[in-house]
């Protein structure tokens, strides 16, 4: 039972002052084993805060990040799953499934986590899963001002992943759940 927090696009301090209080009260250290961050934090203070939640922190570089040394893409293996991380502004058209699928094949991962659109999405596409945790602080994006703060918590247990989606809608935290199982006859060669 491994808990992985996926979030990003906070744009602190440029577009938002902080995470919503209700999110902050839920995110306490000791529960989460890994954090994957899609990028655009943007400053070191946010990095330090995330580090206090969990020492195992993975970040991909977003275009507004002040720390230039984050990698463009990152892959890691947690349990039976291979996860891929990328901010997403490099993939054009932004948020396009087929283009993201190309990236997924390139990185050879089961779950691809990207951001940039500031909208939560979760798709099953061509044998893999693409998750966009949205913006955890509700910062406006290049496309829209109408952004609900959201982030994702994945519970990886063997061949099964339960994805908990946390969204702040009208001041209340709404939690949804998505279940999926990795088929063992996974990526057949294309």
């Amino acid at each position: 039972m491994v808990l992985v927090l996926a979030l990003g696009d906070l744009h602190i301090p440029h577009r938002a002052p902080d995470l919503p209080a209700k999110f902050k009260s839920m995110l306490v250290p000791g529960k989460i084993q890994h954090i994957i961050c899609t990028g655009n934090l943007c400053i070191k203070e946010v990095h330090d805060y995330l580090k206090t939640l969990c020492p195992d922190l993975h970040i991909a570089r977003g275009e507004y990040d002040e720390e230039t040394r984050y990698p463009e893409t990152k892959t890691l293996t947690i349990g039976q799953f291979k996860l891929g991380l990328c901010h997403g502004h490099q993939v054009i058209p932004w948020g396009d499934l087929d283009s993201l699928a190309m990236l997924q094949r390139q990185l050879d991962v089961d779950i691809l986590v990207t951001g940039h659109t500031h909208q939560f999405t979760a798709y099953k596409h061509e044998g893999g899963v693409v998750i966009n945790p949205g913006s955890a602080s509700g910062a406006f994006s290049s496309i829209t001002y109408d952004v609900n703060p959201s982030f994702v918590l994945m519970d990886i247990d063997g061949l099964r992943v339960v994805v908990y989606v946390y969204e702040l809608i009208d001041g209340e935290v709404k939690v949804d759940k998505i279940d999926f199982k990795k088929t063992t006859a996974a990526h057949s060669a294309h």
Partner: protein
Amino acid sequence: MLKGKLKLPDKAKRAFPDRLGSLVAGFEDKEDENRGSDLVFESGEELETIQPNGYGSGGESENDEDDEDYDEKVDRESDLRVRPKPEREGPGSVSVLAAIAADDKRSDLEYELSQPEINLEKLQRIASSGLPDGGGLRATAWKLLLGYLPPSRDLWEKELIENRLKYAKLKEELLVSPSQLTRKKVGALSYCDHPADGVVAGPLKRHEISEEDHPLSLGKASVWHQYFQHTEIAEQIDRDLQRTHPDLKFFSGDSSFSRKHRESMRSILLLFAKLNPVIRYVQGMNEVLAPIYYVFSTDTNEQNAANAEADSFSCFVRLLSDSVDHFCEQLDNSAVGILSTLSRLSELLKANDEELWRHLEFTTKVKPQYYAFRWITLLLTQEFNFQCIMRIWDSLLSSPYGVQDMLLKICCAMLLCVKSRLLSGDFVANLKLLQNYPDINIEHLLQVARDLSSDPSTYRLSLTL
């Protein structure tokens, strides 16, 4: 050789416990009861730390004599394929009787345990003079003394099965991780609308869930919240288990063998902590569990050894229920708390040896709180080596007035046995001595304890706990 020929009737003797037979044969030929005493020493091998000339483990008087002349006798007795024993001459004549007595006691015990209706009083009497290591005798005796097994033999099967089932159920209920719980809940539902493989592309279906069903939930009723609260306890338990008896292969080290044992003990302690939210887990409970779990796991009866975890849990609970008040901080100053027990120890010492009491209490100001706290809460498991602990626990569990009573008597005896050193020491020296209690002859200690006059106000007549 004559020795070889004489071996046969000896074996026959052991198969049919005939007390008279062993007595007679013993006096006929000294060699014979060497082998007779073998039974007592063959067992517990994994515990023994071999010392070339010396004194065997613990203070058991039988061991002392035997290790003499070890080397000399090796070649002569090697054909017998048993651990070589020296010939007993001179001082050995005392241990001749001891060896007969040991064999005697073992057959006594076997006889008693094979009765359809076990006489607990008799069992207590036999057990208080020490139970034999090895075989399943100690395990069975402890289970009876703790009240886990009823005195009538034919109810054993039923009781054991029932209790083991109960334990398995408890484990399933309380020790499962929340992921597995949600998996079970969701189980039948969502996999129906999922086709077998991942060909279906498109947005993944979102299911709305309640406030408490997610890992970050802070609600009291949330399974997740409770789970995380217990991780702290679980971590503490893990840390303590790593430190339990680091010198014994059974508990420590990285073999899958010891890991399995630590896993089992972890489950037991975690379950106990969950079922008792008031005391939860206190550092040291692992030490109290260790002897019980060890004895039950090394039971030669395979079924019993396989179910050692379930049996240990029940017996651990029973044993602890007596002294559970000592672990509760709020009860420290009350009439049932640890401080009151410590003052009872003081009273006991005063009643038996006023001089020593005065010296400790007033002259050197060594109060029981400084040394006896660990003695009492951990039932002396930290003061002696493992072999001695089992011997002491034989006496503790078989005391007709209850474990706590005997415990106080033994603590008092411990003080009396080092009286001369205590009288000549100051605060620092005495404290140092009592906190690192020296090795002494256990039988002597227990004899002193038995002979103590107890404080009549503390009598608790309980034949079974």
